[in-house]
């Protein structure tokens, strides 16, 4: 689709551009991503379900699209906003053009948008709902459709991303049996676990703890995924049943779910962390990893604080004994990871699997598997 179009935000702000991608309208939570590459990985990451992604880097589509850059089987983002989207199939590794692919997948996009002004608006006012419309749609109609989009707070989107049936991978692999609750797991996480010899199983997120026990897991893995962790009490309940019985490891949404399962609280960040350059300090080693991030919610400190001002491994008293701060975001000093001290379990808020982003934190998969072996 081509022709003039616009993004309307729920506060009435309007950003004009040119329509590209599919001839469709879309509404969702408008968030921005500051990575300079990896656009295909981002839109296929299930954690972006029900969201409209604004890419801060102006050129998007330069190297086309390819099967190996998929983070799931489809695009999960509702729409894409760009400064300069381009459809090129002649890059050496490209199997298709970016805009053509968006069109084929039914995903609308806007190009030619002043994305920096838009990002500054979201940064100052917070992530909010919005929609992509053709210029021929009246703003009053557009606003009605934006307001009809449910708010992200309290929203269960894991059910939309989870598989209908369990998926059993590599049943003969030499490593431990890791049972994942698939709230929208990224392919890079699956790849990282499989490369380490894990017998991995992906289960629908509403699978009960009793059913999971029948699989005789050596460990439970809690995946990334979309939506508000506070809306997933049924998953939290399942995890709560299993903590202490088997080692539990979580990434991103999985981190938030494990934290809630042991009695900690989560909160919504003003505009979230989405990009590939956030410094995270691993308190045990002192090393600082540059991390891939994609989350809109975070875990509160031991006294309900949103920022942790010291670099000390402070402790929470949880329903399962002590939890210790293990990783800290050096940008806004939010909780990035913790370990359970009295039962086996550890979680991180960021993405050690990268896809897209730096590989600095891949060692966390090894750390996790060491914990399983003990």
């Amino acid at each position, binding site marked *: 689709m081509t022709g003039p179009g616009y993004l309307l935000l729920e506060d009435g702000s309007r950003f004009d551009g040119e329509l590209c991608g599919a001839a469709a309208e879309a509404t969702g939570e408008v968030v*921005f991503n*500051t*990575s*300079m*590459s*990896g656009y295909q*990985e981002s839109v296929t990451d299930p954690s972006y379900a029900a969201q409209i992604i604004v890419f*801060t*880097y*102006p*050129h998007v589509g*330069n*190297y086309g699209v*390819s099967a*190996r*850059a998929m983070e799931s089987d489809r695009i999960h983002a509702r729409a894409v906003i760009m*400064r*300069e989207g*381009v459809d*090129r199939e*002649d*890059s*050496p*590794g490209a199997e298709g053009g970016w805009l053509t692919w968006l069109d084929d997948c039914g995903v609308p996009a806007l190009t030619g948008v*002043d*994305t*920096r*002004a838009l*990002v*500054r608006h979201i*940064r100052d006012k917070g992530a909010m709902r919005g929609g992509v419309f053709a210029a021929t749609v009246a703003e009053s109609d557009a606003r009605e459709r934006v307001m009809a989009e449910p708010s992200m707070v309290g929203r269960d989107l894991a059910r939309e991303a989870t598989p209908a049936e369990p998926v059993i991978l590599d049943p003969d692999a030499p490593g431990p049996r890791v049972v994942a609750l698939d709230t929208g797991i990224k392919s890079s996480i699956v790849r990282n676990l499989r490369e380490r010899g894990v017998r991995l199983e992906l289960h629908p997120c509403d699978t009960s703890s009793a059913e999971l026990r029948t699989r005789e897991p050596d460990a439970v893995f809690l995946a990334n995924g979309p939506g508000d962790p506070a809306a997933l009490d049924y998953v939290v309940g399942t995890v709560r049943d299993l903590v202490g019985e088997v080692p539990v490891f979580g990434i991103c949404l999985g981190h938030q779910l494990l934290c809630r399962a042991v009695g900690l609280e989560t909160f919504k960040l003003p505009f979230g962390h989405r*990009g*590939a*350059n*956030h*410094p995270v*300090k691993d308190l045990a080693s*002192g*090393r*600082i990893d*540059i991390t891939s991030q994609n989350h809109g919610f975070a875990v509160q400190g031991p006294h309900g604080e949103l920022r942790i001002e010291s670099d000390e491994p402070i402790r929470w008293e949880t329903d399962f004994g002590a939890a210790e701060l293990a990783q800290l975001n*050096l*940008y806004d000093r939010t909780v990035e990871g913790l370990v359970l001290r009295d039962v086996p379990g550890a979680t991180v808020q960021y993405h050690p699997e*990268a*896809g*897209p*982003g*730096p*590989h600095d934190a891949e060692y966390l998969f090894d750390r996790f598997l060491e914990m399983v072996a003990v």
Partner: protein
Amino acid sequence: MPRRDDIRKILVLGSGPIVIGQAAEFDYSGAQACKVLLEEGYEVVLVNSNPATIMTDPEFATATYVEPLLPESVARVIEREKPDALLPTLGGGTALNLARALWEDGTLGRHRVELIGANYEVIRRAEDRLLFRETMEAAGLRVPRSAVVTRMAEAERALASVGLPAILRPGFTMGGEGGGVAVTESEFREKVAEGLMASPIGQVLVEESVIGWGEFELEVMRDRNDNVVIVCSIENVDPMGVHTGDSVTVAPQQTLTDRQYQALRDQALTVIRAVGVETGGSNIQFAVNPDTDEIVVIEMNPRVSRSSALASKATGFPIAKIAARLAMGYALEEIDNDITRRTPASFEPTIDYVVVKWPRFAFEKFPGADGRLDTHMQSVGEVMAIGRTFKQAFAKAMRSRELDVAPAAPDDDEELLARLEQPSHDRFELLMEAMLRGAGDAELKARTHIDPWFLAEIGALARGKDPEAGLARTFKSVDTCAAEFEASARDPTGRATRSAAATAARW
């Protein structure tokens, strides 16, 4: 980790005269670093043979010596001043080579002067071609096939294994002086002889040609805690074969997938650790085969370089200042980001605009020169422009060169296309003329090996689409973070950021 208190007086070496083949930016980085050292309470002794620099103004050092940058004269300064440490990473290749000489002749040992920023082993591993190659291979990285030769007979044997075309790089020279590409056997002999003469150690590297591969640079910083960040990626629009100082370059890189870029990033981390730069910045150059994803490491500079000056201005990450602080013992996380003031320097800048650097040549002043470009740097300066798109930045930089003589294209179409095969000072003017005359992208790709994405963008410019048509003027600033965090109102980063911000006038 706190600032080091065991050193009090630091000797800083400047880069000397501004010559063709060495960038003029070292004055800027050196001055920035001197300011930081003084702020931290150290005594700064500066030696620079060029008094026409900012860094030799009295307020930039405790004591300033305008002396030749030669081992004997600097040794006299060391005898007189008795500095505790020598910081050799701010004055380009000149300062690094001088520091190496002062170590080798025993001056530094005799006066107990510690090399900080880059020690002797680091300088050798990075600058000695053979050692560098061994270090890379030991770290599991691929380098071009090559042989180091010190005599013509050895060069003849190397030719058999490496083949033609071959690249010749004399050891320990700046700007590729005495080097070049040899296509024929007679050229090969001629250039080996030149290189042996130009190298202060009489050494030339004969290297497998990766001409036509994509050329990429990463600016890397490492601190004493072994934390490493990539400040910026830079892609050369001109593929391998043209000295990066003579190439049109763009930041960040434009044509690599995230997977390819992360592979480069992983290798850059391996390189800086293997060479052993403990505190400071390095520039690492790679060649990437666009068709096979194959990566080879070309070289690394364990110091502030021409590219790091560009990267600093492009991203707002002040490499020279931070390199100086790292040498004093600070860790990246202990240094504030000058622009946001709320976030530490232990992060990777992300930008939401495009930066293009264009070299400025002055071949009209050298009637004998043919204007052809190779691995020997010939530009006399450079222009940097910022735009929200590549087309904007490219066009701004192109017109900002303020050429005295406009390049002329041959009338004959085939002659025009043939000229494109050899990189030259007027290559992009010729390219745009060929595009106007209807040459297709496939033809141009075959002639130039320039990535199709660049050809398409430049083609759109050539065909007269004004990249700035219909845009309103607004003021944007370089903020290191793609607007994720608010830039501090008072901007303390000095010249780099202010001039870059002023260039970024349109979205």
